[in-house]
């Protein structure tokens, strides 16, 4: 439905978007994830015709639209919800009705549609309240209603829940899902919270430094991050570099800071590699003789224990190599895990994820 072709955007000589290309299918929820300041907002604004790209094309159902920003023909088929809440100095009713008024609906129609929307967003009875007095979450619901009441084909959201509390975030996410399912609205949204991307999106793209550096389903990205940058954004810990020393039994043995790690990828010896291991795929053993089928078994000492709610990360040092292991809080208490305790960690060879084409290259 939307085709983004090599969009570039420069502001004051600085390149904010350096060639974005993607196709978004009708009816899907597409999430752009990535750290702030990487161009997500700019891209979305270009899509919503609020900015003109320096070069590149946007096709909306086959028609180029990027150069005709004031063409209400296309503007009226999309809607955008921004990160900061938008509330006009007016009643909630009038806030939601604005787009309908622009389109010239009758007073009766407007009343019907707006009241219905108020009901959908759970703000029935709020129609005469002044919009500026609402809470952040409520205002964002109103913003969503303001857009959806006009029945757009495309809904664009720029980090819509970034400033909201968890309860409001849930409400908004539910609404997005609802509108996508009920009306088949195509959704393009950006978020810096990849778990949100996981919850909502059919497909995602990771945006860094003005381009999509990986796109696919959320699992593609999670399980197979295509680069160190993506990996570190996703929050895989344990990104380490080393060199393949030999091949053995169809596996590659990589030496990382003197420690040998087995990986299932076959890579010629001598190749420098960067690899990542998920903390949740490493198991911690207090008792060294515990049997394990894992190929990689490394002895070390607990260096630090960091609590993150019910899951915690324990850093284990083995010589110069530091690896993070995910352990439940309960285990930490039961086993009284503290820095200094000698432990063994184990992980399977398939858990060692090698990232292609890196380690000696300078960055992008």
């Amino acid at each position, binding site marked *: 439905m939307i085709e983004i072709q090599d969009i570039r955007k420069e502001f004051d000589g600085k390149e904010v978007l350096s060639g974005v290309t993607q196709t978004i299918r009708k009816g899907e929820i597409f999430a752009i994830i990535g750290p702030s300041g990487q161009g997500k907002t700019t891209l979305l604004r270009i899509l919503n015709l609020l900015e003109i790209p320096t070069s590149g094309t946007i096709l909306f159902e086959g028609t180029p639209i990027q150069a005709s920003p004031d063409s*209400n023909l296309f503007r009226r088929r999309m809607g955008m919800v921004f990160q900061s809440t*938008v509330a006009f100095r007016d009643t909630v009713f009038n806030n939601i009705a604005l787009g309908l008024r622009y389109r010239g609906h009758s007073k009766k129609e407007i009343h019907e549609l707006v009241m219905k929307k108020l009901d959908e967003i759970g703000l029935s009875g709020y129609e005469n309240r002044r919009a500026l007095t609402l809470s952040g979450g409520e205002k964002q619901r109103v913003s969503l209603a303001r857009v959806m009441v006009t029945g757009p084909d495309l809904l664009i959201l720029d980090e819509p829940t970034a400033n909201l509390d968890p309860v409001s975030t849930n409400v908004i996410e539910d609404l997005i899902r609802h509108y996508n399912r009920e009306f088949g609205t195509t959704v393009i949204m950006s978020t810096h919270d990849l778990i949100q991307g996981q919850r909502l999106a059919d497909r995602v793209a990771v945006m860094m430094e003005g381009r999509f550096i990986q796109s696919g389903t959320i699992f593609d990205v999670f399980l197979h991050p295509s680069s160190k940058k993506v990996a570190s954004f996703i929050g895989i810990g344990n990104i380490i570099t080393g060199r393949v020393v030999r091949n053995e039994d169809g596996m590659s043995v990589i030496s990382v800071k003197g420690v040998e790690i087995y990986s299932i990828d076959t890579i010629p010896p001598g190749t420098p590699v960067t690899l990542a291991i998920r903390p949740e795929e490493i198991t911690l053993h207090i008792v060294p003789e515990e049997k394990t089928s894992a190929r990689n078994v490394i002895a070390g000492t607990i260096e630090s224990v960091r609590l993150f709610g019910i899951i915690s990360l324990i850093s284990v040092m083995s010589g110069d190599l530091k690896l993070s292991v995910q352990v439940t809080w309960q285990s930490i208490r039961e086993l009284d895990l503290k820095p200094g305790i000698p432990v063994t960690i184990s992980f399977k060879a398939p858990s060692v994820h090698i990232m292609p084409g890196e380690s000696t290259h300078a960055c992008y």
Partner: protein
Amino acid sequence: MNDLLTGIETAFLLIQTADPEVIDITIRTLQITFSSVLISVMVAIPLGAAISFREFRGKKTAISIIQTLYALPTVVVGLLCFMLLSRSGPLGDLGWMFTPNGMIFGQTILIIPIMTGLTISALQAIDPIITDTIRSLGASRFQFLKSHLREARFAIMAAIIVGFSRAISEVGTAIMIGGNIKGHTRVLTTAISLQTSMGNFNLSLALGIILLVIALIINLFMGFVQNR
């Protein structure tokens, strides 16, 4: 202090007895001020919107100039209009010298900069995200303008109130263009000026109080409209 009390007393007396001359100059004051405010609104608000929403070279300079004109002394405006409206001047054929129309002309010129400038301030104070939303919803040019004016209506109303206040209180232009002719171009401010120069201070005070009372009533009404 004595004069002040006598002044207040006189004011009440004049109002109570509905002194015809006072009524005459009061009505004329309101006619002229309302007229100039009305005309200014029709010029200043569209002008302010045009300047505010367009990007053009020298925009900052234009806004600076407008704001500098806030300080235009009324006598200077009076002098300029005098040169324009005098029979021997370029607009002499209008025959507006020493008439209320001439005074309306002068007052309008006086308050247009203020109203325009404050309209621009009002519009520029709108969060850009509101503008984005208006555009994003597909507003036409007219809808765009209307929505912005509506969003800034509080501050724009304030601009109108300021314009009205400056118009009703000015003397310099009214005297130079109107000539303070009894029954024809005399207004509250010029009458106050005359009475003061004649040494009738308590009468001047009384007229001054009446002017303030009127301004208060108008402002209360405008405030009421503003807050709805």
